[in-house]
């Protein structure tokens, strides 16, 4: 029974989150008086920008940082999360030993006991209920080596088909769309291309807060005269410099994009030569947007017809237009169509495959790109290969030394795994780098599901809200405690250096997984002692795939400050820009227009729940907050979730800034303080989702998925709001 074993108060007092404000030894102590022994050139552990940073290390402690100005992506720049990231290593909440659940709560255990128990329980469940009765959750903050290892561990170590990862909540809609339209799941352009664009459109991308470093690229383009279009229900920090702001209603981006394509076709702004030479399916797509004139789209989106015309003309009249998109487009039940529409605009205007021209997806998670390429996605094998492709199965099985027949088929996606746990189909779960209780939609459902697990094992460095439900918690490692690679937002493969050893008895994640595989009797497939050995195998497994890493080595990354995949041979320089010369990755070499169909959201607003609820991030927190809610300086910047609402809605409900407000959806209600601002649509409220329990935005969101990408519809829910008497609840 995976119920939380002790009271919340007891858990919090032992495992936090406590706020760390001080470097090891204090401000006046170690950091101030002692110089660092070494500066380790590595990367930030947080978002997909993967900024270069130098960690100051002394006595096996990360004591601080120095900017790394030579690294070309961020040139020393860092957001506040990057500045304070080093505060985790010596954090008082770090797990220093494995933990075993007892009736009284968690007790520290020896590794042998914890790992033997984990292996025994997983084996027992599989013997009793079948191989697929256990599932594995991975995460996109893991290095590529660890991601690869998790996929192999699930399929070879456990023999289950159910492995998926928290990137399912992040990048999969764009990935699915780009794969369908362009033949590969990758942002086509290196970020320097942004500075060369004449027109930039950011849609569903809160760049200033969620990809802060990208702001400088956009501003540099503006300095050169580029025009900026921002489409978002909120007036985000970059919107105040927008030449055109489109206040799109949540869940209606598709109508806006279809109307823009309508105008581009109607007014002859397409690149006919490009379409004829390099694409298929244009006529069908053109027919699908024929009805979407700006007037009709205005009624759906709340964006003025004139503004839609203008945006379409700016993009269509330039051959250096870039369309940038992120979770705002993806987190919808039509997330894939949204991204396909962006790609269709780029293709129709010939804005792709050149400097300053392209559709680009802004990956959110640290290794959002690399973590989804090598096999922890439920339907993929290393190298971005399909798990259902017989040739791919044979290649990877060959590298792994198993028969292709022993390789399980595709399993459930992240939310489907939780659904199957809730329904009793899946009985056991091993999870790393994932905090589903905070990050999955409909948190009450997630909690019910976790409580039904017959065995739940977690590998983590802090006791997350989810880990508190575990039977065993294996004390793992922070990013800076194990070497590896990640791929940043541009698909630049970069080198994560090991700066320190894990503290106490905590272990490197890959060591834990390999040890577990040995105890499951599968040790011969996991002979790795160092991440480098895993990378060498990954190079072979990815060889010939779309995400071909064969030509990449750690040394080559260091010499070149990153290598863009695909990189098929050791003398290949890597591929910063895809699709040059109109060559796409489908077997026919062409890009495929996808026809677009308008769909309403999963749970549209109605009389009872008349207000749109949308969720997202703030700049000082990262994802489920497992890490950032423990860093004092970041918590001080945004201590509690606030409900952003427009004065017009606030006046209607007699709410002022700071008042407590109960937000109710069809699933649950939470009470938060209002933040009354003119920077959001009057029909919409916004809540950042980084918090658990009664402050969790995901208690309100719903489990509707995009049918293809299986991403949840975080960005559109229906809610009602009422002023509350106090923090506890209703008025």
């Amino acid at each position, binding site marked *: 029974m995976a119920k939380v074993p002790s009271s919340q108060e007891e858990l919090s007092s032992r495992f936090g989150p406590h706020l760390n*404000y*001080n470097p090891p030894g204090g*401000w*006046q102590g170690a*950091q*101030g008086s002692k110089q660092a022994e070494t500066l380790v050139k590595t990367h930030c552990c947080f978002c997909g920008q993967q900024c270069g940073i130098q960690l100051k290390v002394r006595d096996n402690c990360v004591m*601080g*940082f120095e*900017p790394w*100005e030579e690294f070309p992506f*961020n040139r*020393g*720049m*860092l*957001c*506040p999360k*990057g*500045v*304070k990231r080093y505060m985790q290593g010596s954090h008082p909440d770090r797990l220093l030993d494995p933990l075993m659940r007892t009736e009284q709560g968690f007790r520290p255990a020896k590794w042998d006991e914890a790992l033997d128990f984990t292996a025994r329980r997983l084996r027992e469940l599989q013997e009793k209920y079948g191989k697929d009765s256990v599932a594995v959750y991975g995460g996109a903050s893991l290095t590529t080596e660890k991601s690869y290892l998790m996929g192999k561990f699930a399929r070879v170590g456990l023999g289950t088909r159910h492995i998926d990862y928290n990137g399912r909540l992040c990048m999969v809609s764009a990935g699915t769309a780009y794969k369908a339209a362009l033949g590969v799941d990758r942002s086509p352009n290196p970020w320097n291309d942004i500075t060369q664009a004449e027109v930039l459109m950011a849609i569903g991308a809160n760049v*200033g*807060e969620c990809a*802060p*470093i990208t*702001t*400088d690229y956009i*501003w*540099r383009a*503006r*300095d050169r*005269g580029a025009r900026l279009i921002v489409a978002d229900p909120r*007036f*985000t*920090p*970059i*919107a*105040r*410099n927008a030449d055109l702001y489109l206040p799109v209603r949540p869940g209606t981006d598709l109508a806006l994009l279809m109307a823009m394509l309508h105008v581009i076709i109607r007014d002859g702004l397409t690149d006919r030569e490009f379409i004829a030479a390099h694409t298929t399916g244009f006529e069908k797509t053109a027919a699908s947007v024929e009805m979407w004139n700006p007037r009709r789209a205005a009624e759906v989106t709340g964006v003025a017809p004139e503004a839609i015309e203008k945006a379409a003309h700016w993009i269509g009249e330039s051959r250096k237009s870039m369309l940038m998109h992120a979770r705002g487009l993806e987190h919808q039940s039509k997330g894939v169509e949204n991204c396909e529409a962006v790609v269709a605009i780029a293709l129709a205007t010939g804005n792709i495959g050149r400097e300053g021209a392209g559709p680009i997806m802004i990956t959110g998670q640290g290794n959002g790109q690399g973590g989804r390429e090598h096999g922890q996605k439920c339907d993929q094998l290393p190298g971005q290969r399909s798990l259902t492709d017989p040739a791919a199965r044979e290649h990877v099985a060959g590298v792994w030394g198993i028969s292709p027949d022993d390789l399980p088929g595709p399993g459930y996606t992240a939310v489907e795994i939780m659904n199957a746990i809730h329904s009793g189909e899946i009985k056991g779960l091993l999870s790393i780098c994932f905090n589903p209780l905070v990050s999955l939609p409909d948190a009450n459902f997630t909690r019910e599901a976790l409580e039904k697990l017959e065995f739940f094992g977690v590998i983590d460095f802090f006791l997350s809200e989810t880990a508190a439900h575990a039977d065993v918690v294996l004390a793992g490692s922070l990013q800076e405690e194990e070497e590896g690679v990640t791929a940043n937002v541009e698909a630049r493969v970069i080198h994560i250096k090991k700066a320190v050893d894990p503290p106490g008895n905590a272990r490197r994640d890959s060591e834990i997984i390999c040890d577990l595989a040995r105890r499951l009797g599968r040790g011969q497939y996991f002979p790795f002692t160092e991440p480098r050995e895993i990378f060498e195998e990954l190079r072979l497994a990815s060889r010939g795939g779309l995400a071909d890493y064969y030509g990449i080595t750690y040394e080559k990354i260091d010499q070149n400050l990153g290598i863009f995949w695909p990189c098929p041979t050791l003398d290949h320089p890597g591929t910063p820009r895809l699709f040059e010369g109109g060559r796409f990755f489908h077997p026919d070499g062409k890009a495929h227009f996808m026809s677009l169909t308008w769909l309403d959201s999963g749970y549209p607003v109605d009389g009872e729940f008349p207000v749109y609820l949308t969720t997202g991030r703030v*700049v*000082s927190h990262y994802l489920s907050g497992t890490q950032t809610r423990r860093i004092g*300086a*970041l918590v001080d*910047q945004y201590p509690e979730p606030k409900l952003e609402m427009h*004065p017009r809605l606030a006046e209607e409900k007699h709410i002022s*800034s700071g008042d407590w407000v109960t937000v109710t959806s069809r699933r649950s209600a939470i009470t938060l303080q209002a*933040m*009354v*601002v*003119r*920077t959001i649509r009057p029909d919409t409220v916004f809540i950042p989702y980084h918090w658990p329990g009664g402050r969790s935005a995901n208690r309100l969101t719903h489990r509707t998925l995009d049918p293809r990408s299986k991403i949840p519809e975080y960005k559109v829910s229906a809610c009602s709001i009422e002023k509350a008497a106090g923090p506890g609840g209703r008025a």
Partner: protein
Amino acid sequence: MFGREFYVDPSRCIGCQSCLKACEECDTHRGISMINFDFVDRKESIATAAYVCWHCDEPTCAQVCPADAIKKYEDGVVGSSLKPRCIGCSNCVLACPFGIPKLVPEYEQMMKCDMCYDRTSVGKKPMCATVCPSQALAYVTPEAIGATRREKPVNTFWFGNQKITTKVYMMAPADAGEIAIDVADYTWEGENELVPQAF
């Protein structure tokens, strides 16, 4: 210093507060941030402004200090108060036309931006301008600013009749030569010196 100057452009600021956090991390600041940061009016706008000390050519803070605790270095940087001299009187806090100095009761002295003197005096960039993701705070050469930015650097400010020139530059619209913030600056009241752009 070393050919580089400090430029502040609030129009680029995204309010991320990276500068505030990084200022604490400078080896000599040790956990105390000396960045001035404001949400201009959060209800009405997302606009934010982060700024450092302007390092005046004739620093008012130093002029009004009864303890002679504020020094301007040869390279134009105006330091924080000298701990042994500062008497915590707050004269500087009240007198600075930009509102920069802060009296930190915990440390019993006035603290303000010293342009990371330990870094800039040896050719490094200050922490805030190094990390700033939007380069609203930038520490680059005048040539680089001239070549890359559409705004223009200005370092002459008017506060009533007080004309102040500073080491740090504000990025202003290309037609603004000087910055005046008071309607009175534009009002003819006899023989006072008027801001040229008023005409």
